[in-house]
């Protein structure tokens, strides 16, 4: 279905249109009280209008900011829509950020209202209320535990929806007033360094990019997507909200965090985005579960997995495949692939994306071989996501695909630059940062180092600023090495060092689940993470993986110096609550290298163990400290020559 | 009304009642020790009797036959403990009950497969038609002897319970399994003992019934007779079993003679049950049974 997005140039207008053309069709479902409660496009729109009145009454005007904090809930999406109707700017925040992170954002954004999910968030806001003079009201979606609050500024969304008073503006006019260059939404990038920056995206940005994406994938009103990505992340706003607006498909909100997988299975989305770690997690889990299967079953499984590896991708890419192979694959599909996808809830997936980090080629190909059309895209909040994207039949696990239609990519001294319709309007209240990022010709600096390969695919190597030099003068791309390590499945995180050093070393975080099950199978006794991480058997396990990586690296002319000479396994998991990871779980290199400085020194002072004590934050927010005496292990490295030999 | 006749019927009832008690005894033993209502007791009676009579027919002397049969019953007991009870230990009583129904079928089948299903005459050297005369009442001698045998067995058993270690252990088990273990005899051994003893009782009952009715499949149905006896006497008391037997015995005889006529006779099949039901409604745990208290 092609629609005229010249006339329908803002979300409020599209929504109004959807309410008419998709009347009675589901716009959003939420699993609540055991069933999937439907909100149709028309009553989503009606509710949005009611809520808009309510917001207007509590003083929300054109250009004002309204903070949105919480898990993916229909009411919060509703709030975004209502704000947009009034021409206000929604500012979603990560629901798990701590109070002062939120405080910074609300302060910086000068938010007038906040719409939050539940008591937890309300408490967070009340705690910092004094510091936010501009914040007039807080609205909550889930009343649980909030009845007794007699704060003057806290209200339930329901109350608004029930008793909204007449207002002196005609919302229909308000909708007409919205124009394509208005700011649609403001998203704070978590930023691996420094304070988060508010990225301003116009309706034009989002709609132009998204409509193209919908064209490419032929999304239609019958598609299903599960909304589980943080609302503050650009992905959720594009893959769920924007695309559902444009193609009229339904957003499904899971019942709760711990029912996500169940709910995924029930819905069976046709359109699924997940960051690599989710895909990898699924795969490890799957393999772990299969370990306990009966011999016969395991044999069948492995046999058909081989078959899939051999033919799956070719079949998916519509290449010529011998009839026998097709038959065999078909049988495999009935016996293994089908049920497997069914168990993962991926049976109906038409299009699957991953992005944000590099993904292990094996993992990537595994899913494709099952017939899941998994593709990599490369993007940024600043680009309204899409910079490059794999296309059907043109997929390469080592790249992030060719440039997205309408986007130009150039590489200047190793760094990737792009320009296109999705390029953001600038950082909120941060001119110089904006200037730094967008140059006069409109090229946006990604901060990523990459190359364009022979068939026009973009290949990302690392964060540009992280790419350093070894004393040998050779290039040192930590992220590239770390990813190679992480692909093995038993390494959760890795942090490589080597800039201005003689050789490369790295910290390892073992993947507890995977290693634990390995330990069980090889009956290695352990009392907990720290203990397990310290075990010499585990060290050897990791060492063998690193050795593989070293061999691999040694074949690469530019990177063979980057082989890992020494490593240690950290006694704690790197954690966002300790600031070691970003909210999107990227390692904060700088912070880590200073917090664990002594360990790094130990690497290069040829010590073979090092005692360390670190402060940690527990689940419940309490602080504590754990200490351990970490063993440092040496690795042997390979030269180009003995590869040839 | 002819009082002599009444007396005759009454005593006759008492005596046949003793035989019910004999069968009931087997139930009580096992129930006391393992809380299992052993529906297979009837089949055990049949099996014992058949084995015994066939051995005699093979020309084996009486005592030897008794001995061999006993050994076989013990083996059976051990087998049951191993194959049936052990896996079902601390299951619902109702499950165990149904298991013994299965066991009942199995043993019945086995008994007739190993031996055969013909009717065998078992002669214990007692004339079945001779009778004592008391006034105008005739008391069947056979019944009297049977009663004596039964009485003797009961006496032996109660002595056994009172004065042997095993016996005491058994009593202990009945009260409380932990206590039994503290006596120092593993539960399983105890069960084997109990089932063996039940086997012995079965043998005696089988012999007596057999020589009265002839050894045949029908014997196994005396178990069904014994159930109301238990209900009335209570599952956990030996004296109860005796008394219950007597009550049922003369109850059904009198009912048959004095009521049967009006309702077309053959009421002794169900009369004991109605009696039992009556008792149940008034005193669910039977006359001598210990009260079952449920903890809230």
């Amino acid at each position, binding site marked *: 279905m092609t629609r005229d997005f010249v006339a329908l140039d803002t979300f409020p207008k599209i929504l109004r249109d959807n309410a008419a053309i998709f009347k009675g069709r589901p716009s959003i479902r939420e699993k609540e009280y055991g069933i999937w409660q439907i909100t149709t496009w028309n009553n989503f729109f009606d509710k949005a209008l009611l809520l808009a009145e309510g917001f207007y009454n509590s003083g929300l005007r054109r250009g004002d900011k309204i903070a949105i904090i919480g898990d993916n809930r229909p009411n919060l999406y509703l709030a975004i829509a209502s704000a947009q109707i009034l021409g206000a700017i929604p500012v979603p925040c990560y629901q798990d950020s701590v109070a002062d992170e939120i405080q910074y954002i609300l302060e910086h954004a000068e938010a007038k209202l906040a719409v939050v999910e539940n008591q937890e968030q309300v408490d967070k806001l009340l705690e910092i209320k004094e510091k936010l003079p501009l914040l007039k009201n807080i609205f909550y979606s889930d009343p649980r535990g909030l009845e007794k609050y007699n704060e003057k500024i806290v209200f339930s969304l329901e109350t608004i929806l029930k008793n909204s008073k007449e207002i002196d503006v005609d919302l229909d006019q308000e909708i007409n007033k919205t124009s394509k260059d208005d700011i649609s939404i403001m998203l704070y990038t978590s930023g691996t360094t420094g304070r988060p920056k508010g990225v301003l995206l116009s309706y034009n940005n989002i709609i132009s990019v998204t409509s193209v994406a919908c064209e490419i994938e032929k999304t239609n009103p019958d598609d299903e997507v599960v909304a589980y990505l943080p609302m503050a992340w650009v992905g959720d706003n594009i893959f769920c909200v924007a695309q559902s607006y444009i193609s009229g498909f339904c957003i499904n909100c899971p019942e709760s965090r711990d029912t996500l997988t169940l709910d995924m299975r029930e*819905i*069976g989305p046709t359109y699924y985005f997940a960051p690599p770690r989710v895909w990898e997690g699924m795969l490890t889990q799957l393999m772990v579960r299969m370990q306990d299967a009966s011999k016969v079953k395991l044999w069948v499984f492995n046999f058909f997995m081989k078959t899939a590896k051999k033919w799956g991708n070719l079949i998916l890419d519509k290449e010529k495949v011998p009839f026998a192979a097709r038959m065999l694959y078909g049988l495999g599909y009935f016996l*293994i692939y089908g049920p497997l996808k069914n168990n993962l809830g991926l*049976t109906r997936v038409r299009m699957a994306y991953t992005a944000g980090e590099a993904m292990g080629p094996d993992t990537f190909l595994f899913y494709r071989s099952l017939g899941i059309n998994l593709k990599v895209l490369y993007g940024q909040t600043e680009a309204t996501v899409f910079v490059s994207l794999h296309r059907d039949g043109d997929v390469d696990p080592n790249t992030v695909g060719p440039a997205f239609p309408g986007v130009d990519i150039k590489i200047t001294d190793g760094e990737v630059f792009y320009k296109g319709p999705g390029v953001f309007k600038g950082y909120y209240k941060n001119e110089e940062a904006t200037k730094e990022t967008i140059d006069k010709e409109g090229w946006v600096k990604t901060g990523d180092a990459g190359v364009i390969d022979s068939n026009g695919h973009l290949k990302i190597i690392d964060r540009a600023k992280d790419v350093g030099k070894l004393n040998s003068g050779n290039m040192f791309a930590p992220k590239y090495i770390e990813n190679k390590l992480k692909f093995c499945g038993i390494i959760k995180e890795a942090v490589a060092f080597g800039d201005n050093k003689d050789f490369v070393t790295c910290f390892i975080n073992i993947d507890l689940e995977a290693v634990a099950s390995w330990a069980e199978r090889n009956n290695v006794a352990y009392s907990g993470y720290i203990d397990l991480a310290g075990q010499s058997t585990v060290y050897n396990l990791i060492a063998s993986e690193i050795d593989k990586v070293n061999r691999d690296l040694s074949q690469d002319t530019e990177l063979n110096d980057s082989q890992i000479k020494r490593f240690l396994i950290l006694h704690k998991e790197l954690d966002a609550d300790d600031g070691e990871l970003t909210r999107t779980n990227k390692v904060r290199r700088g912070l880590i290298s200073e917090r664990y400085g002594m360990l790094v020194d130990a690497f290069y002072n040829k010590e073979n163990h090092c005692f360390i004590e670190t402060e940690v934050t527990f689940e419940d927010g309490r602080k504590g400290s754990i200490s351990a005496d970490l063993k440092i292990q040496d690795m042997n490295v390979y030269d180009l020559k003995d590869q040839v030999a | 009304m002819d009082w002599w006749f009444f007396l005759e019927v009454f005593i006759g009832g008492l005596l046949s009642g003793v035989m019910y008690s004999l069968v009931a005894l087997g139930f009580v033993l096992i129930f006391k020790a393992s809380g299992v209502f052993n529906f297979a007791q009837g089949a055990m009676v049949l099996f014992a009797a058949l084995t015994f009579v066939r051995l005699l027919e093979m020309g084996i002397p009486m005592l030897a036959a008794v001995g061999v049969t006993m050994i076989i019953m013990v083996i059976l007991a051990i087998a049951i403990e191993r194959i049936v009870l052990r896996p*079902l230990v601390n299951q619902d009583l109702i499950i165990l009950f*149904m298991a013994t129904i299965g066991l009942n*079928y199995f043993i019945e*089948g*086995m008994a007739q497969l190993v031996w055969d299903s013909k009717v065998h005459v078992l002669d214990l050297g007692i004339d079945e038609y001779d009778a004592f005369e008391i006034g105008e009442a005739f008391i069947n001698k056979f019944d009297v002897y049977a009663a004596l045998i039964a009485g003797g067995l009961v006496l032996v058993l109660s002595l056994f319970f009172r004065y042997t270690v095993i016996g005491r252990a058994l009593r202990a088990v009945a009260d409380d399994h932990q206590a039994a273990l503290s006596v120092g005899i593993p539960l399983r051994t105890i069960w084997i003992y109990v089932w063996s003893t039940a086997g012995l009782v079965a043998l005696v009952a089988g012999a007596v019934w057999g020589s009265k009715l002839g050894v045949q499949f029908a014997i196994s149905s005396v178990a069904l007779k014994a159930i109301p006896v238990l209900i009335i006497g209570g599952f956990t008391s030996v004296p109860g079993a005796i008394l219950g037997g007597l009550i049922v015995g003369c109850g059904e005889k009198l009912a048959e003679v004095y009521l049967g006529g009006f309702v077309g006779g053959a009421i002794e099949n*169900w009369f004991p049950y109605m009696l039992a039901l009556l008792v149940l409604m008034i005193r669910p745990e039977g006359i001598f049974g210990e009260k079952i208290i449920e903890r809230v």
Partner: protein
Amino acid sequence: MFYREAGQFKTSYKKDQSILPIFQDRIAMVAMLIFCFIVIPLFANDYWLASILVPFLALSLAALGLNVLTGYAGQISLGTAAFMAVGAFAAFNLQVRVPEIPFLIAFLWGGFCAAGVGILFGLPSLRIKGFYLAVATLAAQFFIEWLFTHFDWFTNYSTSGVITAPPMTLLGMAIDNPLSKYFLVLSIVVICAFFVRNLARSEIGRAWMAVRDMDIAAEAIGINLMKTKLLAFGVSSFLCGLAGALWAYVVLGTVEPQAFDIARSFEILFMIVIGGLGSVSGAFLGAGFMILLPILLNNVGSLITGGTISTETIAHIEYMVFGAFIIFFLIVEPNGLARLWQTGKEKLRLWPFPY
């Protein structure tokens, strides 16, 4: 392996609580009904229909009845055959006294009479439990058997003491050949099974199971034990009565009270123990098992011994095998074939994963 549940999400309680929520199960059910109503009639010969399928269905119904009482409500009964007898004789008598009554009405009447008697003998269940209750039901067994044997009125004073079922006609068609009988029984059984399933998943079924699983707790949440148990007795006996009527009218034709002796009661108890306590499918699986096993034994027996083996011996072996199976199931799978079926299904749903 066959399951593809992804995408089968429920948007209303109506859908979520439907009798077969999973699409693939609905398919299977339809397939089975087609098989029973179309395929079997097309291919089965009279021997199969008359002497295997029809008896099987009739006994399944009885087993279903007992399963309501023992499987769902947890009240054991050894008097099933008696309740069947009541059904049979009541139906018969109604038609004898009031000839123009259609037999279906007579069947219902039989069912209700059985229900009445069942409730009567269920009264003790308020005071007594477990095998004490079994005794009460045994009383019913013996009493009723005796009643029908010794009062000619019930057999309409027939000299032989047997009843002969009047011919059945439905909408003008005589139901006299195996096929028509098969359809009749099948329809009745299917309907009853459906009703029981519905009861089981409704408030009544939960009350029954609550009483079965933990009667003290059941009382504490306001469930009236007496009403619940008696209702179970009523429904159960109704079904048994109906089964009895079918047994008399459709299977045997001429019946003597001994056709409903205690052995029959045990047979049906075995069916649900082996088939599976507390499940509708269990009744059918168990009945099938109990019907087919003897036939199997016979054939196997004659195969091995070349036909020299005596029927008597077979009968004894049958006893042993049944006994052994009962014990086996109680030990290995107290929930019977139905549970095995369930676990198999679960495995299929999880396939290829082990859990």
